[in-house]
């Protein structure tokens, strides 16, 4: 059989060439005719986002947020929790919005009733998962509001920020936690709340049982005695349904309630409090001596006051009240900004 090589070559080359041209033209026409204008900002925002698709921003993944933040001027650029301030700034720059300083949020565990300090109603021997345990009559814990301690939060955490301690209570690593709320959603007892990292004085109890019942179930529960409400100089604590609750907007982290709480249900996340110190700006108004809850500040009217470093508990109330801003060294001082708070929190 005779094979006409030249003919086959020319025909096939011509055919492939023609079909290639047809496809190319067809695609070019389709691309031109059906062009969709994609906002280039979306692409750029998408690139600066971490791509974890965690949903902390409230949109369906990073793509969803990128589209929303580029298209809608109402959507703030600082919703990305894992990306923190750097991403918020980058998005603000791309979209031309102003980035309000984004304060990182972290998960806080609102229960201290670990296996050593709380009572169980029965022995649970099912799957080691809180969502399974809660199906067995609400869980084995005597306190219906407490952490079950089977580590569902630790297992859902995409960042490995939650570990279970030896007494079956979750511990949040604030450095790893991005505030994505996965644990908050997964926890069947709702003992996890995601709060701004600077809110460091919290009532770590969710029990709405009456005082005696709470006391019987758990050594570290809030028994609604009201001591914290009385001692709070900022009226931040209120008592509702047998549970003290600190209004995080009003709380100035002075820590007086922490000391007063008879059951240690209020937790101070501040690792070590620095002492207050009065500078030369003091004009001797005596306000600090009046407000100091531990009588550490003293001095004669119109003369510079001093603070007894032994007595000072670092509550920062005098710093807040001083009209001359003459007291420094502890909370509520003006120099203390978010970055310093972060540094402190990392020392935990």
């Amino acid at each position, binding site marked *: 059989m005779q094979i006409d090589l030249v003919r*086959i070559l020319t*025909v*096939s080359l011509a*055919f*492939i060439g023609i*079909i*290639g041209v047809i*496809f190319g033209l*067809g*695609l070019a026409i*389709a*691309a031109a005719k*059906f*062009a*969709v204008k994609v906002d280039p900002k979306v692409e750029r925002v998408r690139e600066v986002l971490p791509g974890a698709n965690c949903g902390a921003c409230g949109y369906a993944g990073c793509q969803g947020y990128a589209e929303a933040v580029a298209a809608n001027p109402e959507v703030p650029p600082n919703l990305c929790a894992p990306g923190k301030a750097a991403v918020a700034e980058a998005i603000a720059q791309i979209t031309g919005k102003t980035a309000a300083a984004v304060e990182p949020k972290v998960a806080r565990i609102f229960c201290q009733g670990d296996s050593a300090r709380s009572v169980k109603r029965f022995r649970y021997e099912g799957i080691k998962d809180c969502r399974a345990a809660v199906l067995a009559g609400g869980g084995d814990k005597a306190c219906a509001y407490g952490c079950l301690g089977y580590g569902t939060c630790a297992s859902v955490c995409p960042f490995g920020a939650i570990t279970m301690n030896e007494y079956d209570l979750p511990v949040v690593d604030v450095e790893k936690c991005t505030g994505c709320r996965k644990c908050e959603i997964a926890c069947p007892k709702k003992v996890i709340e995601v709060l701004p990292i600077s809110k460091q004085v919290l009532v770590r109890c969710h029990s709405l049982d009456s005082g005696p019942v709470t006391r019987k179930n758990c050594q570290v529960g809030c028994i609604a005695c009201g001591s914290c409400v009385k001692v709070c100089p900022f009226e931040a604590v209120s008592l509702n349904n047998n549970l003290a609750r600190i209004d995080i907007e009003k709380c100035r982290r002075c820590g007086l309630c922490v000391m007063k709480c008879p059951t240690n249900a209020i937790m101070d996340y501040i690792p070590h409090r620095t002492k207050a110190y009065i500078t030369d700006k003091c004009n001797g108004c005596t306000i600090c001596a009046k407000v100091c809850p531990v009588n550490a500040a003293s001095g004669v009217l119109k003369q510079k006051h001093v603070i007894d470093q032994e007595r000072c508990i670092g509550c920062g109330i005098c710093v807040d009240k001083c009209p001359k801003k003459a007291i420094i060294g502890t909370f509520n001082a003006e120099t203390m900004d978010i970055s310093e708070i972060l540094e402190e929190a990392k020392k935990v």
Partner: protein
Amino acid sequence: MLNELGKIFIASALINNFVFTRYLGLCIFFGVSKRMETAVGMSMTFTSVMVISAALSWLVYNLVMLPLGLGFLKIVIFIGIVAAFVQAADTILRKISPGLYYKLGIYLVLITTNCIILAVPVINADEKYNFMQALTMGLGSGAGFSLALIIMASIREKLELADVPKVFQGLPIAFVLTGLIALAFLGFSGLIRL
């Protein structure tokens, strides 16, 4: 009993199921069978692309390539046809139906150069099917692939909760499962008498 088209449909969907008998398209099969939702999305996209690309390549092959004596070029040309069609579908869908695009767009890109998509036109050409038979073949293959994906996805969703030994976790147990289902699919081979 069954007419010719029915036989082709049954044969391509069950007896010669692409995944369980011909062992094609395994990458996508294992890739998207983790969740039912993606499996269903992929099945729909796959079936429609398969039917349309079968039709397009039948036209090009029988009306242009055979008369020119260029049958030997079919693999190259079919890849080109499928890729061009998928790309065009991607562009057009994006404009006409953004909703559908977001549902199926990610799968479209994945299947551009998939082996099943290529296998359907090649088998059509080898078997010298006519146009309707080629379409049925595409539809049947799509249905077979969808069936495989959905079976696998439903099993793997259950498997998430099962206590699988550590060495078998993930892909190994999926391969074992696929082997077992393939064995079961052998049972279909007596379904049609030629």
